[in-house]
């Protein structure tokens, strides 16, 4: 066991998220904390999975990376997000501008509502290409076509002048990816980018993201509640539960030796590896509601292996249980062999 409380420090780290606390200031004195103690790194050219049930705070962490918390009335109360010497947690609107979209791209959640319905594909791509800078229209169009080509849209010259409602969900999401990579960013944040798409299209989009990551040497942060998907495309993953990172590690490590009962439970509830005919296993209970977190480990109430010391004291911090594999479980010793 390492004494290093900070997970994931590595020379490859592109972004270091430390003790991030996100919440909503409801009144002068009343704060609703949605995420506390998010701790992980994003490494260069990796695909990082961010997994957890809804309400676990993964989307908030995402938004903190692209600086759009404020639109949801949320803000960062503590902690840091160090990216290339900048602390993203403390940027004002003006300082965000060169970062957001330029160095960190974003693929929205829903293919249905992600693209602006009143603008043509070309116009939206144009915005991403232009970035408020003067560029000749001809050049913008050329670059737009290039981008559409990059995301494997077959007739870019047709699609370029179409409105989103004229496109399929998969194509819309490709357009969104094209817009996200327009400025050749270091990181692309994709918040459940395949919501509402059917399975084959979902796979295509994932493959596309993988391809782009490797081609442009980008990091991809993929948010999902679908562990199977993460397993398939990600290098490392961060498991979030009730506003906390409960496990961080490489995909093979976490798959072979999960170090948190929550991860194990998530794995058990996977549809793709369920035994045919056997009843589907679900995680018992509901995740604790935001703002009503119990003391100690927030998974304690739902945990099969809960011990007396679990539900008391502070929320347990991540500990590097094995090399480059962190867990916030106080009793990882009980997990040995429970999952093969």
């Amino acid at each position, binding site marked *: 066991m390492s004494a290093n409380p900070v997970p994931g420090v590595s020379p490859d780290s592109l972004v270091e998220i430390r003790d991030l606390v996100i919440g909503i200031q409801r009144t002068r004195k009343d704060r609703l904390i949605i995420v506390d103690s998010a701790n992980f790194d994003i490494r260069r050219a990796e695909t990082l999975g961010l997994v957890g049930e809804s309400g676990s705070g993964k989307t908030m962490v995402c938004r903190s990376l692209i600086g759009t918390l404020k639109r949801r009335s949320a803000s960062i109360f503590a902690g840091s997000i160090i990216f290339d010497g900048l602390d993203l947690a403390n940027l004002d609107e003006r300082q965000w501008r060169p970062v957001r979209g330029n160095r960190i791209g974003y693929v*929205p*959640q829903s293919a249905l*509502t992600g693209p602006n319905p009143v603008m043509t594909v070309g116009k939206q791509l144009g915005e991403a290409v232009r970035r408020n800078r003067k560029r000749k229209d001809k050049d913008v169009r050329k670059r737009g076509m290039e981008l559409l080509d990059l995301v494997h849209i077959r007739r870019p010259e047709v699609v370029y002048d179409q409105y989103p409602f004229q*496109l399929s969900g998969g194509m819309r999401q490709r357009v969104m990816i094209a*817009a996200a990579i327009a400025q050749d960013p270091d990181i692309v944040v994709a918040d459940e980018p395949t919501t509402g798409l059917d399975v084959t299209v979902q796979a295509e989009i994932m493959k596309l993201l993988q391809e782009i990551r490797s081609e442009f040497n980008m990091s991809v942060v993929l948010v999902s509640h679908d562990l199977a998907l993460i397993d398939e495309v990600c290098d490392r993953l961060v498991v979030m539960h009730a506003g906390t990172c409960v496990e961080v590690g490489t995909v093979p490590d976490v798959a072979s030796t999960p170090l948190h009962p929550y991860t194990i439970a998530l794995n058990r509830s996977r549809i793709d590896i369920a035994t045919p005919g056997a009843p589907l296993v679900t995680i018992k209970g509901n995740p604790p509601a935001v703002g009503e977190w119990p003391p100690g480990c927030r998974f304690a109430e739902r945990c099969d292996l809960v011990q007396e010391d679990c539900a008391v004291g502070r929320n347990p911090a991540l500990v590097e249980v094995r090399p480059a594999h962190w867990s916030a479980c106080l009793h990882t010793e009980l997990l040995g062999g429970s999952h093969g």
Partner: protein
Amino acid sequence: MTAPTPTTDAESALKESGHGDGPRPQSTGEKILRRTGRAIIVAFWVMVVAFMLIRLSPGDPVTAALGGDAAPETVEALRKTLGLDVDPLTQFWQYFTGLFQGDLGASLISGIPVTEMLRTNLPVTLWLILTTVVMTLVISIPLAMFIALARIPGLPYVFRTLTAIGLALPSFLVALILLYQFGLVWGIAPIFGYDPTFPANMQYLWLPALVNCVVLVPVLSRVLYSSILDTLDEEFVETGVIRGVRSFRFFWFYVLRPSLAPTVVLLSYMMGVMVGSTVILEIIFALPGIGRELVTAVTMRDYPVVQGIILVFGILVVFLSLLGDIVASILDPRVKLT
């Protein structure tokens, strides 16, 4: 990792997304043509109803024109002169055939052709409607945006209360109050009159249009306000922010334009309703519009004038709703023109 499958081309993509299935989609021109055709049919029925209503209602043009003290032979003579001695079916046929020659008949009272009355008086009503639309939008849009974006606690509540009050006020009362305050106390609006040239006519139209606004702005700004709130919740607003879209471009393309369609459609519908309220305003503000002529014509049972004006009003209402749909579909391509 296998290479991504190239996407299906546009046609099959269309199918996949559930849009545009069925036969070849109609062009906007065809749709407008079809809508116009429907409008004409509606106008015909409006005309038939107008023809019947005015004849079925008690009272006739001759006694209305001559008053209570006319001798019976005088009444009979006038009836003959006005062509009212034939049966209603013949009257309708004469009217209907005349319509195709651009002849709407002439006033039984003044003898002025209805087309002539429309030529002089309809523009006033149209200008009033146009001014109302512009003023309503100019007031509603910033108001709705301010309430939606300013996030001042309690403001939406105040807004809701005020809109309820605005809606509850009868427009003739608002008209008289505003006319008293702006026209007499402050002396910044003429009490009556009209100048048929633009922009001189604005001087006479802004106050009646403002009265319409008292009813329209609460409704429209409330609809727009909730549309804007809905739009702000949409993800594409986020993508806009991330692309660094700012200022007017952001407000127009990412906030306002995606929110405007329901407001525009509602406005065009409300304007149809407001055609009725312009009648009251034309009387109170002494504007020589066509609505005022209609009131006079109804009390005088001036059949050709009533029929002609109701026909035009019917066409106007249908046209306004058509226009609203077209504008909405231009602003927001998601809106389908049916």
